[in-house]
């Protein structure tokens, strides 16, 4: 954790503003490539609106399919983004500096994409209006029942999305001032307006720092509540054995942290490769994040085991049948093996080795594995649970995802990455002020014949 180059403010500006002010051509090519998939998803959604939700592979009793699996997956990714940023800020962790904004931006785009999935699933997006307070029809006495988790869920997600987007925007103001000072013409006018006349006086910096801590402290409880509420979409359904579990809220929250931190590590690795930011996103950062991942993964695995074991414990036939379906029936048994290997048994032992933790490529691919596993985890929770024949099931079909659903799922990944890249095109993804503050606070001491960074002076 000791090697650390010394950088001037001019170098920091030059390096971190390069994607914004001097965008390479390949960047546009990558955006165009991702746009094809995003456009395909939009086309698939338009097809679904035009032809009705019959174009999905949903069939009684499996009325929640890949779109809802993907919804929970993206909500999970989004949650750990801000969790990581907030915890590191509150703990004053020095290695937070390059990771915070990437985590927050990933949160915004992942959550925005997640929020689209219920609309995809319902097929009539305009009806969303009547589920929100401005659309309540008091004249005819029609509005949603607040006892339903489907009212809690959009309330929580819209709170989280609004808060996170504004949080990113507020902490972006000093960096927008840097862009204002380093651009010209139309672009300068845009950044001038967005930086709100920021001068960088002591008062403004003080409030920025307090805002970072205060908003982190306020957003953390929202983060915990949102994934708890998403879990209650499932847990309050008493008729579905696999879902009706009291442990679901903490289990979902820790699962979100597991997949989300892995998502942030993947994004950081991509940013480092794309923009050659070895001086900013250093091996130390991956090392520290991997240590965090070990703790999170073990905690998540504990909750997974408890949730699974408690299913067996009452020795009830419906629950045992569900576990039988998940563990022994094709294709769920194969999905279960892949899930267990990729989400825990392959990456975690690898992260125990320092060489792996400091190897960016290995960290990237192990984190991709984690997210493959976590997607399958949500698949195994949702689909097999619904496939069980219930007392009142009068029509029993099977579920196969349709091409439209597959395009929407694939397109959602393109949308999130396209969103992050669009942000990178217009704004610094590594906070300039944080990077500069890190340089100011750095203290070097001599140990033998080398100068190494000592403890950092913290607020």
């Amino acid at each position, binding site marked *: 954790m000791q090697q650390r180059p010394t950088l001037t403010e*001019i170098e920091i500006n030059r390096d971190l503003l390069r994607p914004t002010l001097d965008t390479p051509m390949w960047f546009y090519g990558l955006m165009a490539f991702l746009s094809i998939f995003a456009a395909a998803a939009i086309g698939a959604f338009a097809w679904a609106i035009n032809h009705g939700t019959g174009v999905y592979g949903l069939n009684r009793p499996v009325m929640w399919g890949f779109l809802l699996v993907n919804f929970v997956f993206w909500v999970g990714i989004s949650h750990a983004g801000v969790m990581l940023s907030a915890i590191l800020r509150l703990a004053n962790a020095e290695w937070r500096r390059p990771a915070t904004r990437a985590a927050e931006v990933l949160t915004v785009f992942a959550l925005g994409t997640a929020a689209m999935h219920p609309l995809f699933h319902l097929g009539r997006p305009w009806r969303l209006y009547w589920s929100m307070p401005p659309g309540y029809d008091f004249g005819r006495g029609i509005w*949603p029942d607040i006892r*339903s988790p489907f009212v809690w869920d959009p309330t929580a997600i819209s709170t989280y999305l609004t808060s996170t987007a*504004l949080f990113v925007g507020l902490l972006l*103001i000093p960096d927008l001032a840097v862009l204002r*000072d380093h651009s010209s013409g139309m672009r300068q006018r845009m950044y001038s307006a967005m930086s709100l006349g920021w001068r960088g006086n002591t008062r403004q910096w003080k409030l920025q720092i307090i805002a970072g801590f205060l908003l982190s402290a306020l957003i953390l409880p929202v983060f915990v*509540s949102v994934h708890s509420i998403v879990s209650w979409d499932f847990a309050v359904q008493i008729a579905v054995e696999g879902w009706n579990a009291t442990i679901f809220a903490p289990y979902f929250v820790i699962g979100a942290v597991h997949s989300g931190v892995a998502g942030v590590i993947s994004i950081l690795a991509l940013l480092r490769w794309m923009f050659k930011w070895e001086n900013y996103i250093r091996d130390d950062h991956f090392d520290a994040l991997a240590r965090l991942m070990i703790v999170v993964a073990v905690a998540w695995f504990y909750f997974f085991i408890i949730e699974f074991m408690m299913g067996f414990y009452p020795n009830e036939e419906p629950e045992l049948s569900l576990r039988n379906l998940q563990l022994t029936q094709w294709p769920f048994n194969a999905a279960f093996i892949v899930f267990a290997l990729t989400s825990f048994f392959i990456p975690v032992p690898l992260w125990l080795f320092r060489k792996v933790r400091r190897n960016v490529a290995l960290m990237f691919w192990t984190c991709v594995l984690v997210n493959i596993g976590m997607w399958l985890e949500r698949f195994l929770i949702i689909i097999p649970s619904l496939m069980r024949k219930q007392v009142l099931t009068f029509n029993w079909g099977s579920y196969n995802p349709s091409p439209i659903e597959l395009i929407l799922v694939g397109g959602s990944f393109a949308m999130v990455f396209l969103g992050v890249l669009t942000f990178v095109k217009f704004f610094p993804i590594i906070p*300039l002020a944080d990077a500069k*503050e890190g340089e100011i606070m750095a203290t070097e001491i001599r140990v033998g014949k080398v100068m190494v960074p000592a403890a950092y002076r913290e607020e």
Partner: protein
Amino acid sequence: MAGRSIMGLFKEVDDAVEAADKLKENGMDDFEVLTGSPYPEGAFGEKVANHRLYVWPLVGAALGFSIAILVTAGTQLAYPIVTGSKPILALPPMFIIAYEGTMLGAILSTIIGVIFESRLPRAKLGLYDPRITEGYIGLVVVAPDGDTDRVDALFKAANATDVKLEPVGA
């Protein structure tokens, strides 16, 4: 006190601190320090900035909680159907929505509070130099009429890279 703003631009922190000390020795302790990155408070001997940011989230939280209770209780009371002999007002789901409303109110008002307390937005940037975002330190002080030359000399004596005077009538 009538006067004009004057800004000294310094490359080194120590030079800026020296200039700030001289300003205070000359009775001008109300100066503004402009930097491109956050320095520890008081690093230049400037006055500590007071604010009331902590009140904002409390007010916002109270407002958000009230609106959430109003919406959740209002919709249930406006269509009162007794289900399973349960009370009309279902408190657990009301708590969930009230919690989100409270947090949203607190966060929104904190963000508004930070912008307000930071004295933003500003239509005009005032006395400023883009080099500040490259690591230079700006020291801005309102010099009494006739004292601008003295402050200019004081800044230059402290190795100021540049000294700027607010245009007349700005």
